[in-house]
């Protein structure tokens, strides 16, 4: 059978088995095993692409090119991480007796289901399928956000669902308008919505309808990616969802939504010329980076802090594509890769600290966590260095590449603003994380004693991803590098 179908079938079956129930060890083994197998299949699919036989299924409705293969591998990797850390996360909560049967069902069912939807997004060559898959990720994440059933988690889930659905309605309208712009040239039936078909007939698309469609689709998928000003659901959702689910959203959904944004951008570029959608992406990207600044400085919650980091990084990737230079596009895709390694580390270490202190609010965690949870705190510092783009870590190089291409290209002023924002954000994160990790506890009498750190499954996963992230700084495997190049080829060369 086709590799593409296997890659989708395995997480789907895992989700079904997880939702049905059973003993805990069985569920843990199914989820982690299923997601590990999924990751292997993602690698195999990417391998088949690199071998020169692009995998496809359903009459090219699903098709893997360079961009798909890169996003697929990153999503598969994050899915495995999330499953492994997630099993450990739920064990910790089981030990405290705060897990209900509903939570178990939702957790073991929805995490693989989410992975399935992400992989479907990253392989879709059909704008209709792409929309359906993104909608599935949205629906899967609602119950993960309201997982803890607190007042605030219901609020976050509601805001997320309303804003997300609205964004998706816009994306659907955009898709319809894109389809309308090619009436007569795209042809009837399923293949009329194929991205490859759009690229073939790009010069014949009706400009007014296309322009309107591109704007709606970029706003719609931009909402899912968390580009400002449609980012407001992100801090709420990231605070409330359990850390393993947040990682799926912060890396998987971000990559998947950017994948959609890039596909739309490429259609626009092929038909209307580069200026139109590049200008939009550059503006939205800069706005995201700038909007993150004040909120990082006044932040009161560690997971919300990381949510603003996520908004910043989506912005950086959008800027990289929007600058309109090949080196910047390469930088943006390299950034996506390194971000997918560093962000899980950040959420896992912060999540562990939060879980052991029973809260993610700064005032409940207090100062000087280094003395109470040394390993998680050290990993959080490492993660902070990575996500703020400090040398020698990977994100430093990708940001440097985008900045270099920006100053050499047509938008030096925008690049200067971007650089200034990066510096402020670095200081903001250093200040906030320093406050948590360093110093003596402010009021020893008042402080709640956290649970002790243990080398459980969650901690092992965190250390594992830290090792991978550090090694990747100095050594990216040749096939991964080839994937990034192939993806650049797609985004810059249009296929």
């Amino acid at each position, binding site marked *: 059978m086709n590799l593409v179908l296997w890659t989708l079938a395995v997480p789907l079956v895992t989700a079904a088995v997880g939702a049905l129930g059973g003993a805990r060890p069985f569920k843990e083994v199914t989820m982690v095993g299923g997601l590990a197998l999924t990751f292997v299949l993602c690698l195999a699919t990417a391998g088949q692409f690199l071998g020169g036989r692009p995998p496809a299924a359903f009459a090219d409705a699903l098709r893997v090119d360079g961009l798909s293969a890169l996003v697929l591998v990153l999503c598969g990797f994050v899915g495995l991480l999330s499953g492994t850390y997630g099993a450990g996360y739920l064990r910790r909560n089981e030990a405290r007796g705060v897990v209900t049967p509903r939570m178990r069902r939702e957790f073991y069912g929805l995490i693989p289901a989410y992975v399935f939807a992400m992989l479907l997004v990253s392989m879709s060559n059909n704008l*209709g*399928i792409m929309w*359906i898959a993104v909608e599935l990720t*949205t629906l899967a994440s609602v119950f993960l956000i309201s997982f803890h059933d607190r007042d605030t988690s*219901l*609020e976050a889930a509601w805001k997320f*669902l309303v804003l997300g659905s609205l964004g998706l309605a816009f994306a*659907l309208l955009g898709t319809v308008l894109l389809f309308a712009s090619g009436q007569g040239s795209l042809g009837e039936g399923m293949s009329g919505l194929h991205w490859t078909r759009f690229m073939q007939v790009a010069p014949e698309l009706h400009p007014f309808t296309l322009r309107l469609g591109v704007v709606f689709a970029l706003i719609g998928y931009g909402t899912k990616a968390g580009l400002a000003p449609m980012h407001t659901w992100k*801090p709420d959702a990231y605070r409330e969802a359990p850390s393993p689910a947040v990682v799926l959203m912060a890396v998987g959904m971000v990559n998947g939504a950017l994948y959609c944004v890039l596909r739309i951008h490429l259609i626009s570029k092929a038909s209307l010329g580069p200026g139109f959608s590049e200008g939009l992406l550059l503006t939205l990207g800069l706005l995201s980076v700038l909007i993150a600044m004040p*909120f990082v400085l006044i932040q009161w919650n560690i997971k919300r802090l990381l949510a603003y980091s996520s908004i910043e990084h989506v912005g950086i990737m959008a800027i990289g594509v929007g600058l309109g230079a090949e080196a910047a596009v390469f930088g943006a895709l390299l950034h996506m890769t390194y971000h997918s390694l560093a962000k899980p580390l950040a959420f896992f270490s912060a999540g562990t600290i939060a879980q052991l202190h029973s809260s993610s609010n700064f005032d409940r965690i207090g100062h000087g966590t280094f003395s109470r949870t040394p390993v998680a705190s050290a990993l959080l510092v490492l993660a902070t260095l990575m996500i703020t783009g400090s040398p020698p870590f990977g994100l430093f190089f990708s940001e440097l590449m985008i900045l270099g291409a920006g100053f050499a290209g047509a938008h030096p002023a925008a690049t200067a603003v971007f650089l200034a924002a990066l510096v402020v954000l670095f200081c903001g994160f250093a200040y906030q994380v320093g406050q948590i990790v360093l110093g003596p506890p402010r009021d020893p009498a008042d402080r709640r004693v956290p649970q002790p750190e243990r080398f459980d499954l969650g901690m092992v996963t965190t250390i594992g991803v830290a090792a991978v992230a550090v090694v990747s700084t100095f050594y990216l495997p040749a096939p991964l590098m080839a994937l990034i190049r192939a993806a650049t080829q797609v985004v810059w060369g249009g296929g």
Partner: protein
Amino acid sequence: MTAYVLILSAAGMLVSAFLMVGQKALFTTIRLYGAQSLLLGVVATTMAISESRQELFVTAALTVVLKTFLIPWFLMRTVDRIGIHREIEPFLNVPTSLLICLGLTVVGYRVSSGFEGGTQQVSHHVIGVALSLLLIGLFLMVTRKKAITQILALLTVENAVFLVAIGVTSGMPLIVEFGIAFDVILAVLVLGILVQRLVGRFESMDVSRLSKLKG
């Protein structure tokens, strides 16, 4: 003949949206949404007959079954269970809201003339109504406080998108259409469950109370 049916049904959808803006009883608002979806079904059927586009029969059938019967029934059951039947005072009063929606309709019609064939008699109205409906749906969404009304606003936006699809394309591919219908059902179910959880927790479905998360 078909032109009159099309224009009348499209106009009827616009009227139903205006009535939704002026309405406070939740049951009536849900019924208005049902009527609006029925008219969307009529538009699709008329197009299917007049332009002999078979796929549009499926669109029409899906629309009527799901959006005229299933979704309104589910929403009414939710309202019944919750026992809250009226919208509280919206952020804007009714006369102001109606005036703003009038302006939005003008904007919708203005934009529609940019489309290919957008100034021809029938499709001008269909696209114009669709864009106006979209804007009114967005307006409802930001001015209403009840969770159920926000769902209905979202569904109105979704109806508008379908009307655009019928008006400016030769119909979306069938598989995509089914996929979208499936997703819409799921979304309404999820929204319904969430509303029940919200009411169970806050003893109200006033979403303006959801204001703890800031910064």
